[in-house]
């Protein structure tokens, strides 16, 4: 009897939930409720949730800051999350739901490039503004703005110039010519190395060994022993924040800490990473658009606030999403409305004063972000140069 009841309950429950999806009104106009609806597509379940969580928190913190100060043009920002699980299908479903059912005005998303690429045509058809704050595939930018997708904007640096500058610094200031590659096996890591290879000849350098580690890899000992015996002078690493301390510790185990530095970008310059393996991080060279230790009042305020609110330090994704929400708010203010056309126009021409300098967008809707080059000396990151770069778009 109880089984029968629970079965019936299960059926009815499922049917009700299923009907809820179909019942979304198809043609209702966006109801005016005095808020700005901001959709946020990010992986909040599955293995990639470890990055999506930071993005969501960064955005939510920014929204709270803005709302506490009275909102943007009198409207409060309402962040509506959508889970993409890092899979394109889920990402597109989340996007569609946000657009059609939740009737968002703008969307920020995703972290994974494949999801973002799948979202682009969807937002383009619907005429919804998409701000990307974490994906690294250059195709997103090549196809944006004059490249076709007018509604996609990207507020995240590309790796073209970053790889050039890292290599340049290493060759000219350190005299390195022999490298080993240990980068993350995603479009981010692979693309960065592809770009690096373009410039090897210019600096008379060579790559001795080339390895890519999967996201979530924890055992680097074999590769590091190989690198130790290869004669490389530095390890080119473009990877994720949570692998850097593991690599650092295992470099200590294998005996190359302090002898072969890391160059590239994997958030080497966070306090916890340096603390995890100080000897290995010594002499690390990193180029980034932002680091937790960045020396500016706005940046420090952000780090302090985030750490106080969430009991853990922010990472790059948290920062960029926080910054992007503020950027959007500024654009809405400039446009003096939440009409998407007007906000988009405002974004294209914006001069935004971010925590790391002025941000503008080029004709491919890619943000021109100031970047800094740091070297770790004596356990602290030291700024060795700053630059702003134009991208060489393929014809």
């Amino acid at each position, binding site marked *: 009897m109880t089984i029968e009841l629970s079965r019936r309950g299960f059926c009815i429950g499922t049917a009700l939930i299923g009907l809820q999806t179909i019942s979304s009104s198809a043609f209702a106009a966006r109801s005016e409720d005095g808020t700005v609806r901001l959709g946020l597509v990010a992986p*909040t379940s*599955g293995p990639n949730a470890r990055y999506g*969580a*930071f993005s969501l928190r960064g955005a939510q913190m920014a929204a709270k800051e803005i709302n506490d100060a009275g909102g943007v043009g009198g409207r409060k920002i309402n962040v509506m999350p959508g889970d993409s699980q890092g899979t394109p299908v889920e990402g597109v479903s989340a996007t569609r739901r946000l657009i059609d059912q939740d009737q968002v005005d703008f969307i920020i998303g995703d972290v994974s490039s494949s999801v973002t690429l799948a979202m682009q045509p969807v937002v383009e058809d619907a005429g919804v503004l998409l701000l990307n704050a974490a994906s690294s595939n250059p195709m997103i930018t090549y196809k944006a703005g004059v490249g076709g997708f007018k509604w996609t904007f990207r507020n995240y640096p590309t790796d073209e110039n970053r790889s050039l500058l890292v290599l340049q610094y290493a060759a000219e200031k350190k005299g390195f010519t022999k490298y080993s590659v240990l980068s993350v096996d995603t479009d981010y890591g692979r693309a960065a190395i592809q770009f690096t290879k373009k410039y090897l000849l210019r600096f008379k350098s060579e790559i001795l060994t080339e390895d890519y580690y999967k996201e979530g*890899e924890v055992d680097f000992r074999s*590769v590091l*022993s190989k690198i130790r*015996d290869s004669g490389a002078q530095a390890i080119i690493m473009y990877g994720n924040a949570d692998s850097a301390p593991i690599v650092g510790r295992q470099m200590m185990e294998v005996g190359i800490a302090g002898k072969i530095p890391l160059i590239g970008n994997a958030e080497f310059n966070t306090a916890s990473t340096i603390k995890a393996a100080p000897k290995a991080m010594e002499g690390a060279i990193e180029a980034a658009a932002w680091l937790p230790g960045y020396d500016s009042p706005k940046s420090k305020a952000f780090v302090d606030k985030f750490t106080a609110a969430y009991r853990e330090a922010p990472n790059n994704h948290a920062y960029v999403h926080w910054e992007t929400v503020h950027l959007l708010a500024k654009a809405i203010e400039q446009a003096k409305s939440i009409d998407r056309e007007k906000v988009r126009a405002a974004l294209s021409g914006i001069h935004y004063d971010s925590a790391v300098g002025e941000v503008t967008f080029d004709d491919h809707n890619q943000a021109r972000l100031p970047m800094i080059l740091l070297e770790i000396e004596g356990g602290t990151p030291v700024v060795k140069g700053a630059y702003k770069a134009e991208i060489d778009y393929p014809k």
Partner: protein
Amino acid sequence: MFYTIIEQVVNGIVSGSVYAIVAVGMTMIFGVLRAINFAHGEYYMLGTFGAWFAIEYFDLPYPVAVVIGVVATAVIAVVVGNFVMQRIVGAPAEAGVLATLGVALILQNTVILAFGGSYKFFSGGYIEPVSVFGFTLAEQRILIIIVGLIVFVGLELMVTYSRMGKAMRAVSQNIECCAVVGIDVRHIALWTFILGAGLAALSGVLTAPVNVSVYGGMGELITFKTLPIIIMGGLGNVRGTFVAAMILGIAESLVATYIGLQFRDTVGFATLMLVLMWRPHGLFSAQARF
């Protein structure tokens, strides 16, 4: 050159020990429950989170955190075992797959809900490198190898001599006859499951210091590493699984060094498929039972 190969073999034994502790648990669960536990990696994750929580929020020393991690996971295993795993006994394979996948989703996402999805840093453990026969290893890794051996020997003894162990062997050989002889199959199934989950948790807490990064979704990768091992070792075959884990660890190490790190994960399933073509019943079992 020779030294390098030996060094990679040592690396392989280190990672093999980690896999072994997790894999023997999974294979025992299969032997008794006839279910591939797709949620096995989640117990590894739970053990790690339990220990992390103890260290992060209560500042407890690492050995205490190890115990807490394993005990917490065992408690959760009791609940899961009672409500889910016991019912899988005798059900078709598809049921086991879906049920354990459901459990995996619930465990993973509850942890994300409770602690936030972001990755945490695991502080604690013995990470100082020491030199052993000319190889440098973190102290923690030597601990892992030793624990791996203890677990293996302990299980062998238990399965051969203890009442519980003999009952487990009986259940894995012929469930119908167990009822005749008076063995409470559901009871044995539950305890085997708890033991298996506890071992996975133990492996998690032991490797957390050298793996550093802790997050809710970390169990999935472990599950996928362990699945080929238990098949190669022969399902339900503890000895075979232990050896298979070591072989996989060494193979992965050699592939990572001489072919490329990006192929490391494929070694598991690629080796499995080759083994299955050649010896469908696993490397160590005399005949194919599954």
